[in-house]
C-alpha cells in the first residue's frame, strides 16, 4: 500500500524526521489560505505517481493568489490518469544541495538496505541506469540495526557534504526505524534538501507499506483510500480475492499465482488480451468460484471467461459446482471455456457436461478457444 506524500510526511514528523512546514488542501480556497500562512510556497498534487514535476503536478507560487490558481488547475483534474483530490501546500525551501536517501527491502541480501546518493532530486531509476556507481547501497544486519560507523561510511562513499553529515546520519537512522516501526517496504526521501542555512529537510517522501503487515498497522491501514484504486480491484479486495485489473477483454480465472500468470501469457501469445488476473487460491470452495465469476464480470469489457484449473488441494468437482452456481445465479452472456486437470478433474468435467460451458483439453487449446469464441 502506498501512502501519499502528505501522509508519509506526517509519519516522518511523528518520528522526528524534519519536513517542511505545510498544509493539505482539498479546495483552491484552502490552498490560498495555507499560502497566506506559509509565504512563498510549493503546490504539490497528491497522487501515487513518480515524475509529478514533469507532469505539471508541482508548482512554485510566489503569492497566495498564485497558489490558489495552481491548486485550481490541479484539483479534480487527472495527472497521468489519476485524479488529484488534494494538494500539499508547503513552504518553499532555499535549496543548497539535493541528496537521495532511502531504505528498502533487498531481495538479494535478504535485508533492509540503506541507499544514499549525492544525485538527489532526479528520477532514481534514471540515476541507477546511467550512473549505477552514484547510488550507494548498504545492507543492514537485522540483529544489530544500523551502526554509526556504517552510516558514516555510507555518507562518505555517497559524497555527502561533511558539514551536513551529522544531521543526515541521524535521519538515516530514523529512516531505518520508521521502516521497521511501520512495516514499510520502501521509505524514500528524494530530494533530501540541505538548505542555504545548513539545515536538512525531507522535501519529498515515498512510502510503501507491506500489505501483509496491515493487520498490525491499524493507523496506516486507515490511510488506505479505496477510491483511488481501480473500483473493481477495490471491490475484489473487499471480498478477499486476489484480482488485478488489466485492459483486455478475456477474463482469466485460475488457481495459483504462477498458473494464472502463465494463462495470461498463453492468451497474449495466442493473440488475445487478458482483462484481469484472478487467483482463487488453494482449496477454493464453490462459493468463492461463483464470486470470482461475479468479480470478473464487473468489468463491462469482458467478452469471454477462461477457467484454468490444476487441482492440487483445489478439487475439480468443487470448482465445477462453483461455475454452475455462478452460471445459474447470474445471467452470463459471455462464453466460458474450462480447462481442468489434477485432483477430481474427471468428476468436475462430468458435472459440466451437457451445459453450454466449453471444455478444453489443455491450457493452450483453452486460450485459443476462448479468443475465438469472444470474437463472435
Amino acid at each position: 500500500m502506498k501512502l501519499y506524500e502528505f501522509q508519509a510526511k506526517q509519519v516522518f514528523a511523528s518520528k522526528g524526521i524534519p519536513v517542511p512546514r505545510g498544509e493539505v488542501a482539498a479546495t483552491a480556497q484552502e490552498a490560498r489560505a495555507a499560502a497566506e500562512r506559509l509565504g512563498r510556497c510549493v503546490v504539490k498534487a497528491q497522487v501515487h505517481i513518480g515524475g509529478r514535476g514533469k507532469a505539471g503536478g508541482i508548482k512554485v507560487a510566489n503569492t497566495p493568489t498564485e497558489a490558489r490558481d495552481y491548486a485550481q488547475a490541479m484539483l479534480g483534474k487527472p495527472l497521468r490518469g489519476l485524479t488529484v483530490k488534494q494538494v500539499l501546500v508547503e513552504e518553499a525551501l532555499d535549496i543548497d544541495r539535493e541528496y537521495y536517501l532511502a531504505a528498502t527491502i533487498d531481495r538479494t541480501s535478504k535485508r533492509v538496505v540503506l541507499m544514499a546518493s549525492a544525485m538527489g532530486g532526479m528520477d532514481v531509476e534514471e540515476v541507477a541506469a546511467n550512473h549505477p556507481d552514484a547510488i550507494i547501497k548498504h545492507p543492514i544486519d537485522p540483529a544489530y540495526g544500523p551502526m554509526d560507523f556504517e552510516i558514516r561510511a555510507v555518507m562518505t562513499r555517497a559524497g555527502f557534504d561533511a558539514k551536513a553529515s551529522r544531521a543526515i546520519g541521524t535521519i538515516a537512522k530514523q529512516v531505518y526505524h520508521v521502516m521497521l516501526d511501520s512495516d514499510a517496504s520502501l521509505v524514500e526521501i528524494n530530494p533530501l534538501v540541505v538548505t542555504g542555512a545548513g539545515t536538512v529537510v525531507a522535501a519529498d517522501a515515498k512510502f510503501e507499506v507491506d500489505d501483509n503487515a496491515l493487520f498490525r498497522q491499524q493507523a496506516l491501514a486507515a490511510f488506505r483510500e479505496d477510491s483511488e484504486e481501480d473500483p473493481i480491484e477495490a471491490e475484489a479486495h473487499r471480498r478477499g480475492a486476489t484480482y488485478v485489473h488489466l485492459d483486455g477483454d478475456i477474463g482469466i480465472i485460475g488457481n495459483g499465482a504462477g498458473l494464472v500468470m502463465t494463462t495470461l501469457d498463453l492468451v497474449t501469445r495466442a493473440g488475445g488480451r487478458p482483462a484481469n488476473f484472478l487467483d482463487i487460491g488453494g482449496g477454493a470452495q464453490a462459493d468463492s468460484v461463483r464470486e470470482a465469476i461475479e468479480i470478473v464480470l464487473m468489468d463491462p469489457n469482458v467478452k469471454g471467461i477462461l477457467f484454468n484449473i490444476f487441482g492440487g488441494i483445489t478439487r475439480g468437482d468443487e470448482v465445477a459446482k462453483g461455475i454452475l452456481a455462478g452460471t445459474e445465479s447470474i445471467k452470463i452472456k459471455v462464453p466460458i471455456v474450462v480447462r481442468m486437470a489434477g485432483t477430481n478433474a474427471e468428476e468436475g468435467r462430468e458435472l459440466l457436461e451437457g451445459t453450454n460451458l466449453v471444455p478444453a483439453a489443455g491450457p493452450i487449446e483453452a486460450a485459443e478457444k476462448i479468443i475465438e469464441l469472444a470474437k463472435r
Partner: protein
Amino acid sequence: MSVLVGRGTRVVVQGITGREGAFHAEQMVEYGTQVVAGVTPGRGGSTVASVPVFDSVQQAVNETRANTSIIFVPPAFAADAICEGAAADLDLVICITEGIPTLDVVRAVRFADERGVRLIGPNCPGAMTPGVAKVGIMPANIFREGDVGVVSRSGTLTYEVVNLLTAAGLGVSTCVGIGGDPIIGTTFTDVLELFREDDATRAVILIGEIGGSDEEMAAELIGRGYPKPVVAFISGRSAPPGKRMGHAGAIISGNTGTPQGKVEAFGKAGVYVGDTLDDVVQHVGVLLPGRV
C-alpha cells in the same frame, strides 16, 4: 540418493492442529513420509492422524528425533515458528504459510542462517522426493520417480510441469518449491548447487517468474559451468510493470524483475527457455543423457 528430503527425514508438523496442518499431516503420512511429531503450543499430549502433538518444537525433537519441520502456522505467528524450528537445531525448516510480513521473514532468515539451518519458503509447496518422502502439499499422485530435478517459485506450475513429465514417461528426482515471496530462505542457486552433487538428478527444470533477480543469478551460476542440462520457464511474460501478480514477489519494479532480463540472462548462459511448459518438458526429454 536425493536432496533435502529422503529416507532419513523425520518430520515435525508445526501447526498440526489447524485445518491445513491436520489435512496435510495425514496426506504426508499416507504417502509414507515419517511424520513423527506435531506441535501446537498448549495442545501437547493430544494426537492428530495418530501423530503425537507437543507444546514446543524442542520437546518434539527431544522425544522423537525429528530433524525436519513443515510449518502451517498463521502468518502473524509463522516467522516465530521458523525461528523456533531453527533454534531446535533441525536440519531443515519448510514454511508453507503465505502472507507473512516481509520484515518478519528478514529476521527469521537471519536467525536461521546464523544457526546453519536451511529454510525453504515461505509461501511454498514444500519439497518432495517421489517414492521416498513428501514434505509439502503437492498432489502426490501426479509424481513418478525419475531423474529430473524440479525447482520452482510457483506451486501450481510445478504440478503442471510434473504432470506433463509423467505424461511424457519422465519422472522427478526431487521437486523443490522455493516460494513466491520477495524474501525466501533457499534460492534457485542454492537448489542448483544441491542438484549439481545429486547422482539421482540428471537434468533440471527451473520455473521462474517476474520480480527480483534470482533467475539472473541462477543463469550466472549455470554460465560459469554446470554439469547437467537445465531448461527454464518464466511466467508473467505479459504482466504489466508495477502490478503485483498474486505472489508478493511477482512484480516488475523499474528495470528489475522484467521477463526480458531473465530470458536474456538464460540465453547468455546457454539455457533454453521454453515458451510453454509443454515446450519445456519436450526439451528436457531431448536433453536427458542416454535418451533419444
